[in-house]
């Protein structure tokens, strides 16, 4: 067996779980039963217990989705990838996603939901894949001749008990003190509550948080962010940048500092850069950009400067007429100076000093106030 890097695990019980939506392949009662039985598989060999919630957030959110479903790891249609899950932690961590292009069944005529759910919940609890073909945590799906006879392998039990220990001998001991996940050791500046950022952007499914000469690199699958010198990846880029945004359809991140900007694709700074920001259509009075973000649905880039914003049509390669406009008018609740902004899971995340505002561009309202470094597993 193996565990995720850094051995993330839950430090509280009961854990909450929520079945967010259902596949049409099975009656919802059958889905409930499969998930319940899959959780019991782990409950029986650990001190952990699970309680179901029906709305709002839960430690383990269970969803059925197809293709691209917002976590930068799209499903691939029928066959091949059946499901995936994230290790213990906040937000998307702990969640399990099932590919609804599969034919989910109660028996083994199709893909058995209980078997796959038990495997994915092993990930949600902190187990990685096992090289033991007999283990439930072996990555390749294997049906069972007689599902009633299913039981965990010794490898699975050793694995999960290396994280949580055995079940209590008496039921009373089941309840363990509730604690949040302690911050792992890391760069102290990472978890400084006063931390602010120069710029934030996505890059091929990862998140980059720029500060002075460095940036934090965060991959959704890895709990612990990496910390690098900007120059170690892009030697010709300046430090202390002003803004950054990714146009995913072009696989390009644009970096701004003062009245110049660069285009990078992976590790490569594109030829012909830096260019002047006036080439984008800014008036000469604009000397620098505070923040920028590409709206993938509208295919527009929003530039934020002081209390105003511009909108740039990436297709036409020109600024939208009728702008600039006041940020507060069109982004209610966003009324302080913006340091950085990026888009993820359909939200804009605006950074101002050590505060981060989760903004729903469709509902046009702030939906959550967070610390700026909430992504860095503090």
């Amino acid at each position, binding site marked *: 067996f193996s565990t995720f890097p850094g051995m993330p695990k839950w430090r509280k019980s009961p854990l909450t779980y929520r079945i967010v939506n259902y596949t049409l392949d099975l009656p919802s009662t059958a889905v409930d039963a499969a998930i319940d039985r899959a959780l019991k598989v782990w409950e029986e060999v650990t001190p952990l217990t699970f309680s179901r919630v029906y709305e709002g957030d839960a430690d383990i959110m269970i969803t059925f989705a197809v293709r691209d479903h917002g976590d930068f790891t799209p499903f691939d249609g029928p066959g091949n*990838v059946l499901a995936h899950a994230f290790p213990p932690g906040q937000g998307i961590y702990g969640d399990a996603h099932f590919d609804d292009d599969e034919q989910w069944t109660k028996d083994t005529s199709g893909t058995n939901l209980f078997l*796959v759910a038990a495997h994915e919940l092993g990930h949600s609890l902190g187990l990685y894949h096992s090289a033991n073909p007999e283990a439930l945590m072996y990555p390749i799906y294997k049906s069972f001749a007689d599902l009633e006879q299913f039981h965990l392998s010794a490898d699975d039990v050793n694995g999960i008990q290396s994280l949580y220990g055995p079940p209590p001998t008496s039921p009373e001991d089941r309840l363990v003190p509730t604690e949040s996940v302690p911050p792992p050791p890391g760069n102290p500046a990472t978890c400084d509550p006063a931390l602010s950022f120069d710029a934030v952007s996505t890059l091929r499914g990862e998140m980059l948080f720029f500060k002075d000469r460095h940036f934090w690199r965060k991959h959704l699958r890895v709990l612990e962010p990496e910390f690098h010198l900007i120059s170690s990846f892009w030697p010709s880029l300046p430090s202390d940048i002003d803004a950054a945004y990714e146009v995913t359809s072009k696989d390009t991140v644009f970096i701004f500092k003062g009245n110049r900007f660069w285009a990078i694709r992976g590790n490569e700074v594109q030829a012909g850069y830096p260019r002047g920001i006036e080439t984008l259509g800014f008036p000469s009075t604009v000397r620098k950009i505070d923040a920028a973000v590409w709206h993938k649905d509208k295919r527009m880039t929003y530039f934020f400067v002081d209390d105003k914003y511009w909108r740039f049509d990436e297709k036409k390669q020109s600024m939208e007429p009728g702008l600039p406009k006041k940020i507060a008018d069109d982004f209610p609740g966003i009324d302080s100076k913006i340091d950085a902004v990026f888009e993820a899971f359909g939200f804009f995340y605006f950074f101002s000093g050590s505060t981060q505002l989760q903004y729903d561009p469709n509902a046009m309202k702030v939906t959550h106030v967070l610390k700026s470094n909430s992504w860095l597993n503090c």
Partner: protein
Amino acid sequence: YPLDGVSTNQDSSMDLVQQYLENYYNLEKDVRQFVRRKDSGPVVKKIREMQKFLGLKVTGKLDSDTMEMMHKPRCGVPDVAH
């Protein structure tokens, strides 16, 4: 019309191999231009790693067992950590 049907089949299976090793065994994306030569160093190393992990005979070659395993339904979490 594809000029060489066989190569097309071969192309698509090479794409599958590339994708599989990238997704689950950390094959660096920038070895893309080598994948057409199955015997390139990094790719052979990753094929061996995959064969060892999944309990196959470790040959470093894309034998039928290995190709069959790559087509089996599975979990989308990688087998080796990033």
